[in-house]
């Protein structure tokens, strides 16, 4: 068995482990651990897609969380404002579609229950349970949210074509700040910092293999998020292996040279923006439905720094490493909340864990530039290279062109 196969085996083992985990684990904190893992998968999607954007394509964007937020808010607003009803409310904006009425709820912002109510609540009060309204299927919302992310990815990608490095980072940071400010200011529509509530992923529960799961059960969202992660990883793996991966890495290394060799740098730059921001938006939309609430604080730069740190510690230039790093770090961050005592001094880990995490980030950057996970993966995939080179060099027959006094 060679190393490549070992790597495959390990990957399969990891996948099998996560597939069976919900059935193997049975402690009292089951729900919490499942929650941590679901969040871990969510961050893994963000970190791996961000590694495709910044690690592979070299587009250092700090706006990834903004795309996540676009997806989440896209689906949140969709499910918050649109409903189907068999009878007209005569209060809301509504359109007749077939035998149903398409209802658009009016935006009333944040209220206290004694104050104004939206038209639909009023109508429901009048009907007093005699009419059943149907909320929109959430998958449409998730789809729309992802598309919204993709469209903005396209626009931003086109805008930043000429910007490099620091300018790109600043611009995308600015974009996410504008988006955050807009969401928190437009209270009437987005409910501002109060956040907007969403239906759960399986609002009415779901029955799988005869087993009924309620809307708050962790197993269905766990598998949804896990398969989403697998799907994203599959797409990223395919992209990385295909000419797309080759070209975006070439343009990361040297845009002019890549263009001179026939690579349509403009197209690939925009494509990588669109693909990764769609992924981020998709993850955001699903996560929002899982958590049940989305607030503009999710778009804050601190959240972004978490994704950046996860990707860097895992390995920026390998999306799989970034994903694994994200899961492990999310897990450790949650579990290291326990305080401990050293030499009579109590260290409150709820506070210090993030300090250690930041220090780890800096040390990783300084001394393990490829991240902590990438070297392990490279060990399996690239181990033959060094031996090949050495072998050849040892061979006296080959006349190598060895360098002396060559500048380059």
């Amino acid at each position: 068995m060679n190393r490549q196969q070992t790597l495959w085996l390990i990957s399969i083992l990891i996948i099998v482990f996560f597939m069976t985990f919900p059935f193997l684990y049975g402690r009292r904190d089951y729900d919490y651990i499942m929650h941590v893992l679901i969040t871990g998968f969510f961050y893994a999607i963000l970190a791996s897609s961000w590694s495709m954007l910044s690690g592979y394509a070299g587009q250092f964007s700090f706006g990834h969380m903004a795309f996540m937020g676009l997806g989440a808010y896209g689906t949140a607003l969709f499910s918050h404002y649109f409903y189907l009803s068999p009878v007209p409310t005569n209060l809301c904006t509504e359109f007749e579609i077939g035998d149903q009425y398409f209802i658009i709820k009016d935006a009333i912002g944040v209220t206290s229950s004694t104050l104004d109510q939206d038209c639909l609540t009023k109508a429901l009060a009048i009907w007093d349970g005699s009419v059943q309204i149907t909320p929109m299927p959430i998958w449409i919302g998730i789809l729309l949210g992802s598309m919204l992310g993709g469209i903005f990815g396209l626009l931003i990608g086109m805008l930043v074509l000429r910007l490099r490095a620091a300018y790109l980072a600043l611009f995308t940071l600015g974009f996410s700040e504008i988006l955050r400010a807009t969401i928190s200011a437009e209270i009437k529509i987005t409910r501002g910092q109060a956040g907007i509530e969403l239906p759960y992923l399986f609002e009415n529960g779901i029955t799988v293999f005869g087993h009924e799961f309620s809307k708050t059960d962790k197993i269905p969202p766990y598998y949804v998020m896990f398969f989403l992660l697998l799907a994203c990883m599959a797409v990223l793996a395919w992209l990385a292996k295909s000419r797309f991966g080759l070209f975006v890495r070439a343009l990361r290394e040297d845009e002019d040279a890549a263009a001179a060799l026939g690579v349509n740098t403009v197209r690939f730059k925009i494509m990588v923006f669109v693909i990764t921001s769609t992924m981020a938006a998709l993850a955001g939309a699903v996560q929002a439905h899982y958590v049940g609430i989305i607030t503009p604080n999710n778009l804050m730069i601190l959240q972004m720094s978490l994704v950046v740190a996860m990707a860097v510690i895992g390995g920026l230039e390998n999306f799989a490493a970034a994903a694994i790093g994200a899961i492990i770090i999310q897990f450790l961050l949650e579990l290291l909340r326990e305080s401990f005592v050293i030499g009579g001094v109590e260290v409150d880990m709820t506070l210090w864990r993030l300090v250690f995490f930041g220090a780890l980030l800096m040390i990783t950057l300084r001394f393990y530039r490829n991240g902590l996970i990438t070297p392990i993966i490279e060990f399996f995939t690239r181990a033959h290279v060094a031996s090949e080179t050495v072998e050849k060099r040892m061979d006296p027959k080959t006349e190598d062109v060895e360098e002396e006094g060559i500048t380059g």
Partner: protein
Amino acid sequence: MIELEVKNLNKRFGGLHVLKDVSFGIKGAELIGLIGPNGAGKTTLTNILDGAIKPNSGTVYLNGQRIDQLPPFEVAKVGLGRTFQVTRSFRRMTVLENLYVPALAKHVAADKTEVTNKALEVLDFLTMRHLRNEYAQALSGGQQKLLELGRLLMLDPDIIILDEPFAGVHPTLMEIIYEYIRKVNEEGKAIVLISHQMDSIFSLCKRLLVLNYGDLIADGAPEDVKNDPVVVDAYLGKDDDENSDTTNNEKQNSA
């Protein structure tokens, strides 16, 4: 039949008139030297031919297709390849991947094994086969230069512009590059060689173009050019040091 036609090219940067009505043509697998003092506009000319910057006026036709308004990647597909004055390999990609880029970029439906075989052939020619899976940044400066030439072979263009291929190169390597140029030329490709090393230019080229501060002051056989009083006056008399590249600056200006 390879045919490049450059007509009345003009390029200004701010108040600087870098190219003044430059016209010339290439027919068939010629091996041409392009010389001129620092700041003569050689690199600008290369950048315009390659599409990296647009001329203010004038036209460039390659094999009957107008290329002066095309972006670089289209120009590369039409059939013009170039190297850069400073070696620009894709440092954190393997040698093979470096070679895949042009091949896959040019032929959308290229077969991977075919490309690999071709790449290995190229590597054999460059005596670098054993390094195929090394990252380019692990290579020596000279090897990176060879790799850049190898990429051009993979792109398989009709015309190759080599910008200072001999700058700071070790003599052993020089031999390989000589051989490369001759071989590629024999295979039916036109080559434009930009260099400050007159010996190399004179030993390789059958035709010389001389640029002097934007003017194309001579175009002809090396012997004729050598004796042209204008050229002697402008250039051959004194030979400068390595000049500094202005590619980036120029691009900034045009942006």
